[in-house]
């Protein structure tokens, strides 16, 4: 039987190599959260003091089939939600913030550490289900989870504690349940998308800090990460089993969804427009305790994408193409923070040179972070897009001639956005005037999630981009490194779970 690494994986987690090959750029680009050793990492983890030897010796992934890996019946789901509702708040309230942060940091680091027993157990299923290459998966996890550790984690926890002190207690949903200071009665249900394997962590953290019990519903095609995370948290602090659950079922089951619609508050859903519209409609017919206060009843994360803007004075910045290529390549461009469209203030000759640099950089990315397996439908869509672009007179610069998925740069002088298929494909618009860009983006208000900005003229557009819904604005290379404070979809992460910002506590 394998033994867990002492004291979790410590701060070296992100420096370990996923293979015998040279370290990936993702490993070299250690996030601030990963560079700094937190107190939780230096000290012996309280989790280890609390857990039994048997619990320490058995990794979560080695335990019997998790609830997330088999389908949950509607009755089981209802019982789980009622249990979370009645017992979850007390279990969470009894957990001091410092302890929660330690457990969280330790669990995420174990999942980041390719040599930790839980991660080793999880790795094959995670690679297969995520359809990312092993190196691509690791780089993606480091980008996503890195923002939920260290300083960002502590910053969000500090805000949460402050708001908890300021927020008056809400009436508990169950009279038998203990009163708790969070305004949300819970339990929250988070319905996850399958494109980003670690999305569960980003969605779960604010709920925990708000002391809101949570049911995580994973896609049945990829239930592994959420269930592993919950098991690690529960292993470290067994009472969390009363406040957290991970489950799955195939989509489209109205009967199974009924308890979620009835009991979950808030319902946090990642989905497409039709799905979200349907849920809104069905949800609106049910009255919820949170309807009376400022907590959103249904938080919907619809389709989104990200863009880049480079002002003339930025084009000579070193490494710019490499950094942007990383923003494209991470998660094989599947996330809403993936770079899909780039506007550069450049003349045709400069633009062509920069597009060539980008294609070269994408080729390098394809070597360092090989693309995962491609599905024929997306590959076909990219082929069609390339052919149409040729007819439209766009220039096409391929990362490698014989592998579409390695990267494509479309170069056009047309300023209108025209999203290419998400297969490491980027459309570059060479324009004279950046100011005129904002009106062209206004039809996409609410879809634009992030912006990589470089140069004074680009940063000058920051307020307008915020107004369009691009709440994550960073320098190139950091687009997919959102941290715990990110207002994904415009939602304040703590407000969702019962801790709204107010004039008094914001």
């Amino acid at each position: 039987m394998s033994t867990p690494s002492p004291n979790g994986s410590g701060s070296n987690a992100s420096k370990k190599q996923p293979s015998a090959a040279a370290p990936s750029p993702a490993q070299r680009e250690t996030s601030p959260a990963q560079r700094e050793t937190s107190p939780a990492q230096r000290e012996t983890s309280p989790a280890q003091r609390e857990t039994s030897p048997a619990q320490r010796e058995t990794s979560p992934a080695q335990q019997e089939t998790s609830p997330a890996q088999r389908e949950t019946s509607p009755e089981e789901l209802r019982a789980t939600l009622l249990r979370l509702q009645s017992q979850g708040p007390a279990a969470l309230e009894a957990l001091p913030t410092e302890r929660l942060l330690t457990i969280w940091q330790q669990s995420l680091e174990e999942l980041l550490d390719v040599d930790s027993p839980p991660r080793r157990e999880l790795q094959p299923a995670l690679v297969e289900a995520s359809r990312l290459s092993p190196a691509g998966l690791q780089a993606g996890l480091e980008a996503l989870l890195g923002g939920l550790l260290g300083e960002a984690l502590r910053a969000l926890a500090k805000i949460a504690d402050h708001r908890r002190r300021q927020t008056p207690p809400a009436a508990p949903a169950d009279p038998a349940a203990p009163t708790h200071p969070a305004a949300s009665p819970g339990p929250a249900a988070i319905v996850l998308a399958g494109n980003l394997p670690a999305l569960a962590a980003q969605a779960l953290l604010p709920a925990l800090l708000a002391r809101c019990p949570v049911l995580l519903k994973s896609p049945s095609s990829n239930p592994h990460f959420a269930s592993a995370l919950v098991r690690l948290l529960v292993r470290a602090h067994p009472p969390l089993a009363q406040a957290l659950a991970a489950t799955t079922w195939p989509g489209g089951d109205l009967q199974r969804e009924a308890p979620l619609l009835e009991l979950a508050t808030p319902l946090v859903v990642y989905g497409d427009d039709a799905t979200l519209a349907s849920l809104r409609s069905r949800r609106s017919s049910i009255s919820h305790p949170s309807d009376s206060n400022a907590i959103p009843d249904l938080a919907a994360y619809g389709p989104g994408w990200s863009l880049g803007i480079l002002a003339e004075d930025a084009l000579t910045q070193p490494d710019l193409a490499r950094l942007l290529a990383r923003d494209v390549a991470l998660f094989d461009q599947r996330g809403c923070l993936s770079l899909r469209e780039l506007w550069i203030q450049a003349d045709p000759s400069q633009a062509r040179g920069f597009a060539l640099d980008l294609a070269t950089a994408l080729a390098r990315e394809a070597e360092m972070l090989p693309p995962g397996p491609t599905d024929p439908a997306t590959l076909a869509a990219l082929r069609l897009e390339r052919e149409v672009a040729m007819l439209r007179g766009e220039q096409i610069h391929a990362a490698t001639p014989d592998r579409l998925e390695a990267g494509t740069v479309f170069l056009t002088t047309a300023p209108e956005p025209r999203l290419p298929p998400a297969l490491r494909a980027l459309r570059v618009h060479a324009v004279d005037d950046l100011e005129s860009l904002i009106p062209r983006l206004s039809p996409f208000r609410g879809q634009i999630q992030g912006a990589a900005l470089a140069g004074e003229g680009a940063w000058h557009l920051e307020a307008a981009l915020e107004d369009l819904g691009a709440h994550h604005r960073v320098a190139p290379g950091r687009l997919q490194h959102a941290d715990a404070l990110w207002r994904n979809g415009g939602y304040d992460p703590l407000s969702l779970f019962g801790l709204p910002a107010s004039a008094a506590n914001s």
Partner: protein
Amino acid sequence: MSLIERIEAFIQNPPAGDFNRLALEAFRQQFAAIPEYRRLCEERRRGPETVTRWSEVPAVPTPAFQSIDFRIAPPQLTFRSSGTTAGADQRSVHHNPYPQLYRRAIAESFPQACLPSGKSCPILRLVPPWEQMRDSSLAYMGHTVEERYGVPGQGCVAFGEQGLDIDQAEAWVAQLSGENREKQQEVAGPVLVFATAFALAWWLDWRESREQASPPLPPGSVIFETGGFKGKTREVPRRELLRRIDRSLGVPPSRVVREYGMTELSSQFYTNALGGGDQDLFFSPPWAPVRILDPQDLQELPAGQEGLVAVFDLANAGSISAILTQDLGLREGDGFRLVGRATGAQLRGCSLTVEEMSTGR
């Protein structure tokens, strides 16, 4: 004879002509007349001087018909896609300067594939009449089929301004079965139902919801089914659709012919259901061969491998003959099977591969 006349003659009698020669002539005209196409060919380093086989002619992807005007002469007919796949603002437009080729293609393929006993019969159309939707290629096809193969005075268009007219369809079927004796006409033998899969599903829903069973179609009747469910608000698996057609309309799967066609093409492809063939295997006519291409390099794939469906349609001589569709297919024997569709072009972001909660529809 002009090229168009020679192509029409070829469609009428393929063994007497030289497909490759006609294809290269059509390519030469299209290359010369359409600047955007010339640019694509030049990018691919292919032109009339270098291409010697029809299969080397660069293909135009169907989405390009949304923004580029492909035609070599003034159009006599203009068809627009319904916009169900790409959205109302992204409709393909196909200008057709030579509708005689379109009609000839129908004449040389439809009767054998779709007509009960290969003969004229009463036709029920569950598609818009051409008078109502002049830019719909399917409406035009239905009109042409009725004109050529319908029985005057015995057909029915169960489609009005408000959409599918189920009452009209039911009245027509009742009349066939003799239930509506006041309006009964001399209808003998089988009939043809010309419909989209979506309309059929809608009709079947209605019939199945009735307490009293509606009469079936006369024995030997045929259903022409096209369109699938792409872009629609609901989908019915094909096997289920066939089962329901059999149960409700009394038409067995061996009498349901599936058609594959699109706005950007002038020719159609059919399954050989009436000949006892596979219900999902399409065959191409001699004037519109199909190839399955690897999306990576547009090279032809061997049988059994999934790729993009490409067609060289001689009947498209007035616009673009070499067409790269958005459909995924694979070759099987002499036919091809559709297995999916290029779907990566739309906005996906965080909902990519999301396992959706049901849409509740």
